[in-house]
């Protein structure tokens, strides 16, 4: 799993939570461009991707990394609510969305639909 988020505190907590839940976290990135690069280099199964990044948006990262066979499954996260993005999340090609405060093994498994650790 790859975590892309510009907030170091959140990345650390998310990594601990995912590792505790049995996921293998292979890398982290703090902005969109490096997220794209790391995702191409490491070819993770899942990318946990913040929508608001300092350089490009998470939606652009999805366009460049996700969607299609052999590509990582992408789960968007944000401290905003899904309704704040209208239908953009549906259209983006990501597997789903989780509010940052709601991130847990259970919510992640629900979005991934059985593709657990």
């Amino acid at each position, binding site marked *: 799993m790859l975590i892309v988020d510009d907030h170091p505190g959140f990345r650390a907590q998310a990594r*601990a939570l995912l590792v505790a839940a049995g996921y293998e976290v292979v890398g982290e990135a703090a902005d969109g461009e490096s997220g794209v690069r790391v995702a191409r280099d490491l070819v993770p199964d899942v990318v946990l991707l913040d929508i*608001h990044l300092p350089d490009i948006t998470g939606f652009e990262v999805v366009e460049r990394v996700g969607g299609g066979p052999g590509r990582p499954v992408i789960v968007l996260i944000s401290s905003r609510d899904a309704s704040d993005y209208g239908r953009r999340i549906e259209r983006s090609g990501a597997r789903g969305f989780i509010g940052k405060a709601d*991130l847990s093994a259970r919510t992640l498994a629900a979005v991934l639909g059985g593709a657990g650790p």
Partner: protein
Amino acid sequence: MTRRRWWLLALGIVLLGWILGGEWVSIHAHVPENHFIDALPGLSFLLAGIVALDQRPGNRIGWLMIAYVVVSYLGNWGNLQVPVAPAIGSSIGQQLGGAILAHIALSYPTGRLRTRFERAVIGIIYGVSSLTSLVILLAFDPRAAGCTRCAWEPAPFPSRTTVMTANLVAQRLDFILVLLFLAAVWLRWRRVTPAERRALAPLWVAVGVVCLVDLLGAFASPFPVRQPFAYLVWELQSVLYVSVPLIFLWGLLSARLARSAVGDLMIELDKPLPPGQLRACLARALGDPSLVVAYARDGLDGWVDADGQPRPLPEPGSGQQARTVTMVERDGQPLAALIHDPALDQRLVCAAAAAAGMMIANERLQAEVRAQLEEVRASRQRIVEAGDAERRRVERNIHDGAQQRMATLALSLAMLRDRVAGDPAIAACLDQAAAELKQAIAELRELARGIHPAILTEEGLPAAVEALADRSALPVRVHADFNERLPGPIEAIAYFVVAEALANVTKYAGASGAVVDLSRRNGTLRVEVTDDGIGGADAARGSGLRGLEDRVSAVRGSFRVENPPGGGARVRAEIPCDG
């Protein structure tokens, strides 16, 4: 030399060629007349026309004189041995000159016909002349013209009789037309004041000369061999004709006429003028349609027009479009600047400015008020836009700061909770903390949304309004006939109109539902929120609606709250959104 002058010089040279070329053609066709004397009136009209165009730009008399030259010498070109030339020369060349001359006389000195009767008379004269021209053109018969050697293509319906009849009718009608023309001149004499009568002296002299020439026409002949006496009369006629354009020109340029223009101006200024009309009056009086009046700002640098819009003065000597600036001052303070054609008589400009002094001072005050109003409007718009930008910034800060930290905190609590599952007391305490935090996150999110909804930035107005409708306690239908993005401040204002209106409907209207309509037409965004409640909404009461009205009008939009008789209420805003 200005570009305009070069053009006039070129026009003069071309028309000189037109006149002299026509005479040369006549000489080669062995027309037995005195070509020097025949050319004299044309040269005189040409000189007067070019000088009038140069000295009185915007006055049509110069152009009419030029038109007279072109038309009158068509007859000579009719001697050219090429198809159609004789027909055109004999038709247009001989029929239209008199009409143009009458037009010059009646429209003197401004070049404009003033009364309906004058326009009718000139219209009839042009109509009759054009009609006889056309008939002769279609039925031109060389034998009727006395030319047996000419080479041409026959007219569509060659008929000697038709041409002769047309000429005869034209001669008979000529008499009536001259009477009509004299009636118009007489009416004009009666209409104007004694001072103006004196100023119009050149007109009376010229009309007298033209009448004399016309009378002499009955006895004149350009062919010396056949009728020596008639030839002398023809010479006299030509010489008299030479004086006509020069008389008009003298009148156009004379100070007396200038004073009369200023007199006209004073009469016009006696009546109250609609805003902005002073410029038109001055332009008319000075004969310069391009004249601009710029007003000095009160205690500020810079100049504005009558609408209060900035109007910088031209830089001195700025290239081809050179303009002259004449300052109008009062007690040493600049009041206004007249920006005009450099060819205008400076004394005339100063006289007109003096005559319009009071009006200029008045209009300057109005322009100052308009300029200030415009500045207030612009600053209001800037304040609204700055407020909008500030809201975005605050929302962004909440998102990047507190919301992130709270989300991280929520994760920490969740992990902690997993680790202390064995201690029910601590677990319960952590559950309580997590629930509080969740509530705080939700409240903060709602607060951020109220400050500036992220979806508006992300997805635009229709999507943001849809989301608003989804969250509303009442069923709300949304119709939007566009999907593209609008300028940020416009989207924000429209969004908050809908948000406030829906909040009011939910709280006070007792409605069962509402409809939001968003449409965009002719550069205007229209937002309408209609409900089926008890009505009674009033923008003057609620501070929410009032604040919205202010924001909408700050971007030059309109805002209305209506309570139709059938019940319910309608909030409607129209906001310009620049295409």
